[in-house]
Each structure stands twice: as C-alpha cells, then as structure tokens.
C-alpha cells in the first residue's frame, strides 16, 4: 500500500510548486530556485507515480483499508479522501453524494506516466526556452505550468466524474492562461487576434463542450444515483439504451471540446499563440488527449450504445481527414503541427469509436512522444530563428542545427507511420480495428488510410521547407542562428528515443509478439476489445493491410519530397489547377468565419436585443405613466399662453386643468401634495357619504 497510499500527493506536488512560485517566486526567489522547484515538483510526482504503478502490479497482495478500496480483478485501487458534496437523497431514497476520490488502474497508470514523464521533459526544456524572459514572467510561466500538471493529474486520477471535471476545467483554465501568456502581444495580424483572444476562444469553446459534459454527468447522476465512475459503469446495464446513448453523446460532446474534434476543433490552431513548450505539453501531448481518455474511461457506457459509438467513430474519422487537409496548406510551422494534432486526435477518437480503446490509448501515448518532440523541435527551430515561425522564411537549417534536425526527422517519420517507429504500430492497430468495424469498416479504413497519406505528405513538406533547400532567411537572422542550449536538446533526445521505441510495447500479435500494452490495459478495457475482436481474424490479411498502409505512408513521403524538393514547379501547376480547393484549405474552409456568422453574430444580437428590451419595453412600461403625464404637460405648454391672456374657452380650460394638475403633481412643492391629500380626503368622504345615502 506504500506508494499507492500516497497517490493523492501526485497532484499535490505541482500544487505546492504552483503556490510557492506563484505567491513568492516573482519576488523572493532567484530564477534558478524557480525552475528547481517547478521541475522538482514534477519529478517527485513522476517518481511517486512510478512507484505506485510498480506497486499496482501485484494488486492482489494489497490489503484494503478504510478509504482505500482494492479491486483485484480490475487491477484498481481507489482512494477516498473524504466527502465533497453530500447532496442528500434522491426520490428513491438513495444517497446522492460526491466524494473526493482518486483511482489508479492500468488505464490511469499509462496516462499518469505519460503525463508526468513528458511533462517533466517539457519542464526541463522550458528552462532553456524561457531562459531569456525577465524574472516575474519566468516565475509566472513555471507556476502556470505546475498548476497545469496538478490539474491534469487530477483529471487522470479522478475516480468520480466531478473530480475528473475539476481537472478537466482546471486544465482548461491553465490552457487559457498559457495561451494568453503573452497577453500584450498580437497573435494574428491579419484577423487582428491577440494572444488573449486566442486564449479566450479556447476557453469558451471548451466551455461549450463542457455543457455537454455537465449535462452528461447530471443525466448519469440522476439516473444512476452516483457519479463514481465505477458505480456508473456497473449500472450501465440498468440504465436503458436511451439514457446510455444520450449520456454517451453528451460526454462525447464534452470530449469534442477538449480533444478538438469537429465541430469544436477551431480553438486548437489558435492555441498556438502560447509559448511553444505549452503547445507541446498542453496542446499536443496531454490536455487535448483528455477527451480520448475520458471516452476510454467510460468505455462500457459507450459499448452499451452502438449509435454513440458510430458517432464517435465518424466524427473522429472526419476530423482526422478534415484537419489533415487543412494542414496541407498552412505556412506557420506551429499551425501545421496543430492541425496535425487535431488530425491525430481524430484518429484516436476513431479508434475509440470502433471499440479499439486500447489502440486509442496506445496512439495517445505514442502521439504524446512524437508530437511533443515535433513541437519541442519546432520550438528549437523558432528559438534558433529568433522567433520566426513562417516556414516560407526558413529552409536549409539542417546544417545549422543538427541535433534539432535529427530529432525532427525521427519524429516526422514516426508520425508518418514508417516502421519500426512508434507511430507505425499504433496507427496500424487503429486502421486494422477500423477496417473490422461493421457496417462502415471499409469507409472508415479508407478515410484513415487517406489521412495517413496526407499526414506523411504534409509532414514531409514541413520538413523540407524548414530544413532542406535554399536558405530563405535574411542575414540578421543568420547572424543569430544557433543550436539550442543543452537543457533543450536533452529532452529532445530522450523524446526521440521514445518516439522510436515507444511503439514496441504494442507490437501486434500477428508479428509474433505479445501486445504488451493491450494486455496491460485488458483489465480495464478488455470488455470493449473483445467486442472489437469478435470480427473474423485473418492473420495474413492483417499483414497485407499493414503493408498497404505502410505503402500509403511512404507514398505520401515521396510525394512531399517530389513536390517540395525535387520538382517545385509541379506543385505550382497543381495548385494552379485546383485553385479553388487550395484557397479553401488555406482559409481553413472558412469555418471560423462561418462560426462568426452563425454563432457569434446571433449571440451578440441576442445581447443587444436583451439590452434593448430592458431599456425600452420593461422600463418603458414602468415609466409609461410618467411619459403620459409628460406628454400631456408638453401639449399644455401651448395653452399656457392663452391662460395668461385670459382667453380660455371651456374645453381648453378642462384640458389645461387636467394637464396642469398632472404637471403640478411633479412640481416638488409640498403644498401641492398637501392639496392633493386633502382633495383625496374630500373624495373619499364624499364617496362614503354618497354610499351611505346621505
């Protein structure tokens, strides 16, 4: 029980780091102390996680204690720290309550190690990358980064949906803060979008997704009577298909927000406004995969609803293809990578949707390695290029920054799916699972394979434009060109190793190995896997498919090489002939503009309408009496002259009398009020007398 019992400290170390650096860092600590605290906190988390994961291996020998439940069959240890929201009873008398509880099982173990491990590397990288920032900014950056780690770990470890939601919103907040980190800078001159705008866009888009997440939670809470994840999953059988489908779709909508799926992906490309380590950590390796993680977490719920599964698969596949096609035409190094991330996330969702949950997690892991590497290498490039991000102004960098170049090539090959690098195995597992889906298997496979080709193509394009060919930057930049410091290169190297070897834990069985990862995850995700594997198993066919997908990837690479290095004029001709499509891609299919028209414009209109309604209708009714009085008195002004001259006729006199009374009511002279009171008495008593018949 030793280190597992300390599981709750895993998110707490970064919280401590955040508090120290956030409250005291900027004023009292030197820079070195700041990064030692920040990196140390994450390292401690990593070590404790590692110990806990090791201890989890012989879960059978663990003894339950109060507040710590052990489920040997599912390899799960659940720590309950205390009651959070005891909300009384539901209609049927069951206790509606939410606990602060954390759970460690193989699924969260994988995530835990990926998050803390990659997170630690990126923290180390940030020391060098942010090194030239002035001190308060430096401390603020590490404080935010630590807070993010804490929230991400809460998300991963949470054993009940609200605890997961704490992390879910927390990472959203950190993402907001870190995207808008340079809050005084402009991000996109063309659309006049500042970094703060980008952060807000990310946060709001995520919040829109959260509507789904919250509603899904509520639906489950009310119907299952609990929000404990295992409690819900145990009750999926009794919930009924309608509730399952609704809840699954709602949760998936939330996941769409966080994992940047259609229709909520628009925030992720703009999230590149943040510093590059942030893009690597949050918008590639960890946070954006939270949606995939939660979907896998709730796998039994999804499996109860074929419709929801299909929706997940289709949305994932479409996102993968759609984002990859946009990635073809981008010129900002980080935006290419961002669309690539969206596309890869679509892949993961596709995997989850076809029931290959462990493949989704596998791809999540390998993607964390190679995409973090890509971003960090890109950061190194940007660092070397004095902040330039436009790939049209790069080229020929391979001679100047060899380490960065080498790692970038590895990562590119890994994401393109070239064996035996990490990306190959995970991507292939997904494609194979997609192919076996019924009834859309072939279609999904085609989309997936096409995306793989596109990915290889645009990644190679990126590589060529950045590192090969002629140098397109000016002398000023050349003068400052330098390889990054060691604190940046070492993480690159470590990640490069992982990008090569990370996939070897999941070599498919057909190749004669045991799929280690799938086996490890089986206690949690096994049920879903069996469903996916119910399809007829044909080893030879699987090998053929593997070769086909490799060929497609290679074809993409070659095409990229031809178009961008060998025969650029062919590319120009192609772009000419398909100019309309090209423009669409460059402008990202005008989705942002569309959302502006159909979402934002009506929202602003609604706000304006509400204000107008308040100002004119509601207040208008209230002031109606006043307006009438005023109107009457205005008309009477004309008559006043006649009154003074004594030229009054009877009708005029009546009008004048009335209007005059009305206006006098508002004179502010006390005597008027007294007169009115006495007149009132007169009227009342007269009425009384008349009624009495006197």
């Amino acid at each position, binding site marked *: 029980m030793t280190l597992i019992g300390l599981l709750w400290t895993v998110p707490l170390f970064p919280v401590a780091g955040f508090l120290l650096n956030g409250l005291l860092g900027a004023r009292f600590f030197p820079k070195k102390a700041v990064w030692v605290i920040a990196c140390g906190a994450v390292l401690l988390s990593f070590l404790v996680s590692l110990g806990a994961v090791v201890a989890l291996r012989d879960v059978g020998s663990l003894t339950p204690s109060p507040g710590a439940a052990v489920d040997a069959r599912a390899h799960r240890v659940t720590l309950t720290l205390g009651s959070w929201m005891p909300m009384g009873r539901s209609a049927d008398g069951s206790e509606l309550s939410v606990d602060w509880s954390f759970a460690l099982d193989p699924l969260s173990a994988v995530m835990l190690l990926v998050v803390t491990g990659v997170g630690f590397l990126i923290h180390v990288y940030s020391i060098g990358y942010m090194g030239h920032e002035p001190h308060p900014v430096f401390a603020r950056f590490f404080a935010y980064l630590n807070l993010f780690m804490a929230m991400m770990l809460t998300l991963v470890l949470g054993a009940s949906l609200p605890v997961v939601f704490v992390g879910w919103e927390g990472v959203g907040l950190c993402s907001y803060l870190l995207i808008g980190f340079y809050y005084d800078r402009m991000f996109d001159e063309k659309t006049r979008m500042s970094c703060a705008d980008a952060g807000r866009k990310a946060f709001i888009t995520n919040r829109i997704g959260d509507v789904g997440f919250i509603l899904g939670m509520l639906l489950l809470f009310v119907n299952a009577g609990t929000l404990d994840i295992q409690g819900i999953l145990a009750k999926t059988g009794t919930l009924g298909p309608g509730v399952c489908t609704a809840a699954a779709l709602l949760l998936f909508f939330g996941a769409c927000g966080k994992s940047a799926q259609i229709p909520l992906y628009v925030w992720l490309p703009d999230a590149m406004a943040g510093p590059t380590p942030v893009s690597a950590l949050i918008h590639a390796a960890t946070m954006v995969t939270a949606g995939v993680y939660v979907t896998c977490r709730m796998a039994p719920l999804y499996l109860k609803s074929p419709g929801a599964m299909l929706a997940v698969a289709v949305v994932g596949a479409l996102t993968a293809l759609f984002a990859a096609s946009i990635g073809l035409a981008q010129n900002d190094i980080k935006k290419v990578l961002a669309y690539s991330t969206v596309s890869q996330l679509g892949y993961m969702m596709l995997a989850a949707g076809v029931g290959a949950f462990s493949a989704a997690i596998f791809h999540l892991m390998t993607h964390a390695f190679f995409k973090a590497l890509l971003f960090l290498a890109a950061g190194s490039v940007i660092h070397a290029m004095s902040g330039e991000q436009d790939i049209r102004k790069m080229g020929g960098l391979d001679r100047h920054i060899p380490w960065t170049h080498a790692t970038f090539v590895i990562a590119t090959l890994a994401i393109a799916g070239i064996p035996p690098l990490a990306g190959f195995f995970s991507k292939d597992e997904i494609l194979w699972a997609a192919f076996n889906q019924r009834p859309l298997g072939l279609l999904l496979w085609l989309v997936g394979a096409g995306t793989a080709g596109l990915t290889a193509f645009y990644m190679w394009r990126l590589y060529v434009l950045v590192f090969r060919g002629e140098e397109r930057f000016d002398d000023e930049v050349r003068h400052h060109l330098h390889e990054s410091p060691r604190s940046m290169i070492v993480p690159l190297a470590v990640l490069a190793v992982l990008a090569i070897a990370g996939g070897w834990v999941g070599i498919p069985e057909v190749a004669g190995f045991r799929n280690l990862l799938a086996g490890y995850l089986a206690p949690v995700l096994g049920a879903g896997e069996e469903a996916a594997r119910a399809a007829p198993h044909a080893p030879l066919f699987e090998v053929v498919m593997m070769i086909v997908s490799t060929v497609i990837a290679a074809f993409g690479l070659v095409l990229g090489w031809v178009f961008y290095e060998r025969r650029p004029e062919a590319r120009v001709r192609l772009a000419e002939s398909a100019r309309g499509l090209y423009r669409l891609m460059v402008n990202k299919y005008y989705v942002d503009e569309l959302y502006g028209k159909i979402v934002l414009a009506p929202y602003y209109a609604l706000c304006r309408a509400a204000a107008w309604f308040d100002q004119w209708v509601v207040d208008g009714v209230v002031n109606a009496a006043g307006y009438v009085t005023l109107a009457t008195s205005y008309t009477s002004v004309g008559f006043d002259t006649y009154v003074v001259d004594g030229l009054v006729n009877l009708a005029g006199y009546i009008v004048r009398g009335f209007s005059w009374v009305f206006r*006098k009511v508002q004179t502010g002279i006390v*005597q008027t009020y007294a*007169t009115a009171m006495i*007149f009132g*008495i*007169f009227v009342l008593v*007269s009425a009384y*007398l008349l009624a009495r018949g*006197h």
Partner: protein
Amino acid sequence: MAPEAVVFYVLASIALVSAVMVIWSRNVIHSAIYLVLTFFCVAAVYVLLRAEFVAVVQVLVYAGGILVLFLFAIMLVNLRDPLGSRLGVHATLSGIVGVSVVGMILYVYSTGRLARSLTLGPPTTGGGGNIQLLGDALYRDYLLPFEIASILLLVAMIGAIVLARQKY
C-alpha cells in the same frame, strides 16, 4: 340670547376674521399682529369654557413666546420682496379644495346627530375654576407624559439652536 352667548359669538367672529387676515395679509408683520389677535380671542373663548388655566397658558406661551419668536424670525429673514404673491392658480385650486372640505364637514354636522348629542353640560363648580383638578390630572395621572413633554421642549430647544447656528 344670553350675554355669554353674545360674547362668544363676538369673540369667535373676531378670531375668524383676524385668522383670515393672517393668511390674507400681504405683509408678514401684519400677519403676525393678526395672529396675536386671534390668540387673544381664543384665550377668551377658553375662559368662557371654564378653562382658565389653559387660557392663561395660551396668552403666555402663544401671545408671549411664540409671537416674539415669529417677529424675530421675520426680522432676521430680511426679505427682498416681502409682498409675496398671494393668489396664484394653485392657491385658487387649493382654496376650492379647502372650502369644499369645510362645506362637506359642515354638511356632516348639519345632518344632525352630532349636534344634538354634544350640547354642553352645566359649568363646573366654584369661582376658583378647576385649576386644582387640572393640577391633579397633570401631576398625578399624566406625570410621565408631562415630563416627556418637557424633554420634548428641551430637545426642540437644542435642535433649534443647532439648526439656527450660523456655522455648523
């Protein structure tokens, strides 16, 4: 008609006329003088009603104290235009309202029941009046209200001083 009745009607008429003059007169000083006249007449009516003590208090406090206060105030308030306009349209309207109310109340009186049931009883005993009875009532039954009234006067005095001070 009994002599007392004659005296009463005469006094009442004087009081009413001078009261009208109080509000009619354009000069504030004149108003104050008419006011004093009204007060005296009312005091006399009190005597007729066998309320000698109150009559004396009336003369002392009203005619003595309050009027002096008024005169002081009038002199301190050095009006640019002492002859304020008297009858505006507003005043006419107020007058109409006021007179109608008076008329109405008179009408109520005249419908009878009140008038019959309230004829005054015989005068109280003794030439010395009823001051002793009044004293008993004031200082025995109504001692606390009496003391409170004195505190009220004290508060009013302090309040008046505070308000009227030049700088505060």
